[in-house]
């Protein structure tokens, strides 16, 4: 999660860890750790975790009544991803960094275009083309009928648009203006 925090450091993403009750106190690998008796006891364990793991992520400590822990699911290692509107985008019983990374990538991508230096006027107009697997210059979109662009309301629609017929390179278009005798070899092909 620390790597994810570093990855999304310059994005509008915050990571918060909530310290809950001990799931395995006094077990084989955790002999020196007991179940919390007081809030100060719990806070001391949380501080020790932060120091041991050298965590940069803020760790909030749930109360002794475990109110928030029970509200969220009462599981030892669950994860929630919440968007800017306060809505849950992802909830999982185990914390899986790659799943969280995928969801955050979607959220951050959806944020693009709202930041001033990311703004592209053609993107705002919903005009973006990837025709036949090759990027098409946005100026060439003038050849696309306006009715087609108004149908591009979602990101999925904007990725692929009906391409204008390929009119060839500039030299092809100039050569087409010449009489057939001046066009060169192959100009009569297909005319039989």
């Amino acid at each position, binding site marked *: *999660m620390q790597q*994810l925090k570093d990855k999304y450091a310059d994005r*509008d*993403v*915050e990571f*918060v*860890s*909530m*310290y*809950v*009750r*001990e*799931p*395995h106190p006094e*077990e*084989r*690998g*955790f002999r020196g*750790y007991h179940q919390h008796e007081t809030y100060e006891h719990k*806070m001391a*364990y*949380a501080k*020790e*975790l*932060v120091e*041991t793991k050298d965590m940069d992520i*803020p*760790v*909030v*400590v*749930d*109360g002794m009544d475990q109110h*928030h*822990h029970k*509200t*969220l*699911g009462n*599981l*030892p*290692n*669950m*994860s*929630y*991803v*919440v*968007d*800017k*509107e*306060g*809505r*849950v*985008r*992802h*909830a999982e*019983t*185990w*914390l*899986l960094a790659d799943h969280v990374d995928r969801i*955050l990538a979607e959220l*951050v991508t959806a944020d693009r275009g709202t930041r001033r230096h990311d703004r592209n006027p053609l993107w705002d107009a919903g005009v973006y083309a990837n025709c036949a697997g090759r990027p098409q210059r946005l100026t060439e979109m003038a050849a696309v009928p306006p009715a087609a662009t108004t149908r591009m309301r979602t990101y999925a629609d904007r990725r692929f648009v009906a391409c204008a017929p390929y009119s060839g390179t500039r030299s092809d278009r100039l050569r087409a203006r010449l009489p057939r005798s001046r066009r060169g070899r192959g100009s009569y092909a297909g005319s039989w």
Partner: protein
Amino acid sequence: MWKIARRLALLAGVHPPHGPYAGFWSWKYLDLVRTARMVMSRRVKGFYREFPDLFPPGSKFPQIVLETTDGRTIDTRSFRGQKHFVLFTGAIT
């Protein structure tokens, strides 16, 4: 083989953690009998059964106001309109 073990555990209603050995790597640090009794208990299975219905994707996340280890207070409502956030639970054991 470990994938099969993991699937069998999930069929039995046991949710091992993700990781090597189908998630059973953590059992090196745990008391096997005590942990097996806990994960097979009706109480813990109930937690996993109820979890998807608690806050499914699209629902409003509850407000959480708690104190951090360095004395600050974090309110999840303060992130609204500002940042996406990831909340995960854990402990030292």
